[in-house]
């Protein structure tokens, strides 16, 4: 039996099924919690830290923490929004993000969050690292310049035997994503497309695809990321959160 529990986000009363992660429960209550590495239906791994909320005064990632009865969650506070903004800015200096020439522009979740948080420019100096573009795979191009190491591809894509096709390589600030040379060769169009869709940024691209929607009509050109969640008509959500 699914047990229904009550909890609050910024004092707004919400309900959820026991065991749901905070971020999913919030979504169902019409509340958007910003995140980059979370993807519906894929096992969470709190790696981007953007969805950090406060529970009992402690920072927790909303994508990995289950809600519990009576939990009081802080989400849309100045302190947390400022923290998220600072975290989002980190990605822009870590990699090389030339949005004007990026196939993912307008549909990229990193960019969309930056718009939502009104980031004019990151506060940190740029690293301008030397990163490779890997074009050895017949279907996918991997551009390490844009990869935010969210692990979505690792977690979402497996072959029929459950083997991982994407993996981390190295550690620390030298981590990269690699595509298995053997299994990668047998990627179907369908899986390649899924990989591209799963990737929040323009780091995994299907060859010869991109720039097919004109500027002004792309996903996040007019409406901020998360606005679809906030526009859900949820009966028991009393107020709209997040801006």
């Amino acid at each position, binding site marked *: 039996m699914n047990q229904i529990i009550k909890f609050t986000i910024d004092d707004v009363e919400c309900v959820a099924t026991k065991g749901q992660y905070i971020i999913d429960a919030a979504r169902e209550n019409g509340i958007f919690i910003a995140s980059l590495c979370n993807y519906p239906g894929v096992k*969470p791994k709190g790696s981007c830290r953007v969805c950090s909320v406060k529970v009992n005064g402690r*920072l927790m990632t909303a994508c990995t923490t289950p809600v519990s009865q009576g939990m009081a969650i802080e989400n849309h506070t100045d302190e947390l929004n400022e923290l998220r903004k600072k*975290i989002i800015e980190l*990605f822009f200096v870590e990699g090389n993000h030339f949005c004007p020439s990026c196939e993912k522009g307008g549909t990229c979740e990193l960019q969309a969050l930056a718009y939502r948080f009104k980031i004019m420019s990151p506060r940190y*100096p740029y690293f301008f690292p030397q990163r490779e573009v890997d074009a050895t795979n017949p279907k996918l191009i991997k551009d390490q310049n844009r990869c935010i*190491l969210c692990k979505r591809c690792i977690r979402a894509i497996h072959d029929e035997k459950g083997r991982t096709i994407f993996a981390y390589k*190295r*550690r*620390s*600030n030298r981590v990269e994503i690699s595509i298995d040379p053997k299994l990668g060769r047998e990627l179907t169009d369908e899986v390649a497309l899924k990989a591209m869709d799963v990737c929040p940024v323009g780091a995994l691209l299907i060859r010869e695809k991109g720039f097919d929607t004109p500027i002004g009509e792309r996903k996040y050109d007019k409406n901020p990321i998360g606005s679809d969640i906030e526009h859900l008509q949820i009966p028991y959500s009393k107020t709209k959160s997040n801006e």
Partner: protein
Amino acid sequence: MKSFTQKVIDKYNRDKTRLMDILISIQSEFGYISQESVSQIAHELHMSEVDVEQTISFYHFFSMKPTGKFSIYLNNSVVANMMGRKEVAETFEEEVGIKFGNITADGLIGLYDTACIGMNDQEPAAIINNHIFTKLTPFRAKEIIRDIKEGKKVQDMFTASFGDGANRDDLVKSVVSNNIRKIGPILDPQYKIGDAIKKIIKLTPEEVITEIKSSNIRGRGGAGFPTGLKWEFCRNASDGIKYLLCNADEGEPGTFKDRVILTELPRLLFEGMVIAGYAIGAVEGILYIRHEYKYLEEYLENILKVAREKNYLGIDIMGKKGFNFDIRIQFGAGAYVCGEESALIESAEGKRGEPRDRPPFPVEKGYLDQPTVVNNVETLCAAVKVMLHGGEWYRSFGTPESTGTKLLSVSGDCRFPGVYEVEWGFSVNSILDMVGAVPRNVQAVQVGGPSGSLIGSNDFDRILGYEDLATGGSLIIFDKTRDLLSDVVLNFTEFFIDESCGSCSTCRILPSILKNKLEKILDARGVKNDIAEMEEWGKILKASRCGLGQTAANPILTSIKNFRHLYEDKIQKTKDFDSGFDLWRAVKEGCEVTGRVPNI
């Protein structure tokens, strides 16, 4: 190579969770893990090649390129530098004819840097093919290279007599010294093996937990979680197989007390593991030891063998029907973060040592997703004494908040570096006295390693304990001649950068930004705002998943807090803004490539 690899894979039953052991065997045999071996392992274990490679490339002591018939890993941590590492490193480079990070053309010798190897009381130290060399000098470096070139085996290269105590054991034969300087209830050599086991099997597991709880002992690995409570959580966790993991990763720079226990009192530790295993209802214990201590492997395996023969381990232990428990040793492969309990579990499962998201905690879902207790070496040793003499007896040591004793690893500028067992509640001043450091010459003490804090004389009257200065036991002393910012803070910050598992944005990216700022200040280009920004940005790290990221800014933040004048002395007083941009530097490369003279 192919058949060796196959043999190893078969030895571990083609078990994916034993990937670490498979890789360690291959790396030790060949000095690297070839692409062919990777393919073979991937095929046999039903993994993808990138999956095998992601584990290999995580660990410092694994390599997919040859590391040399003799691979020399020279410690580059703060204390090694203080004790003369630079001259030793230069001598190695000169004698071998290559720079660190490289291998000779003939594949004979490789030179590598490595983080603290747990020998802070006898630096500079190096690991050569799993053997430890301590107190190196340029002279000794020359000898070593000469010996290698003459074709000697590593074990024949020792010229000094072996170290003290069990370091001389036939199965150890190491020049490492224990340097035990003060003993207390834990290090007390007067104890009879097996007495505690005989005692506890007459009690119920719950009674054991109650006794441990009554001692108020808290974890000695740094986090200080009440041990009895942890055991109880695990005991009460939903059924399933339970595991006990002992954390001997000891990666915090400046800590080496667990090494001394492993050398001198391994039987005490194993007894502690048996007790914990009994209390929580585990059937298997895993002792996870950092790779740097591989020289103790045979010695420890032999002690386990004897313990099995004596039925301290195995089936129906000491005649107690149904009490079955055994211990296996798992080595790491060079990663500080594997000391974090959930990363340690991942690593013991053969994976990258990436910490897990919590909840669930290991007591609910740990090794192989089963309820698991992870305890530090010292915690488990203390538990034996608690069971022998009672919780009340244990509470008579230390302070009400922090009961019992603590093993300190003391190093740096003092006359008697080594291991000291003291009661909690000792002040920093009295420790300085005890270890032969003159308080008036001491500039700073790093308490608790890089993740702890750098304190100055204003804090020397503070006491060690959970209520004041909590510490895993590392104390590094710096006298007034040391340049704290460039010799200590910068080095520790670089340590955190290298050791991050890289999976959280904050911990992967931010420490490098802070380091660049620190270097800007050291370069005399800093302005006031740079200090403020370091303080402000350092807080972002609190959003990281594990303690490594959460404390990665501590060297900078605690030194700003306690030694602000050092920063203020280095910044420019006449400017509010300086981006650090230097036009001369920026045109240098362009001029070189195009053969022009700067016209700026």
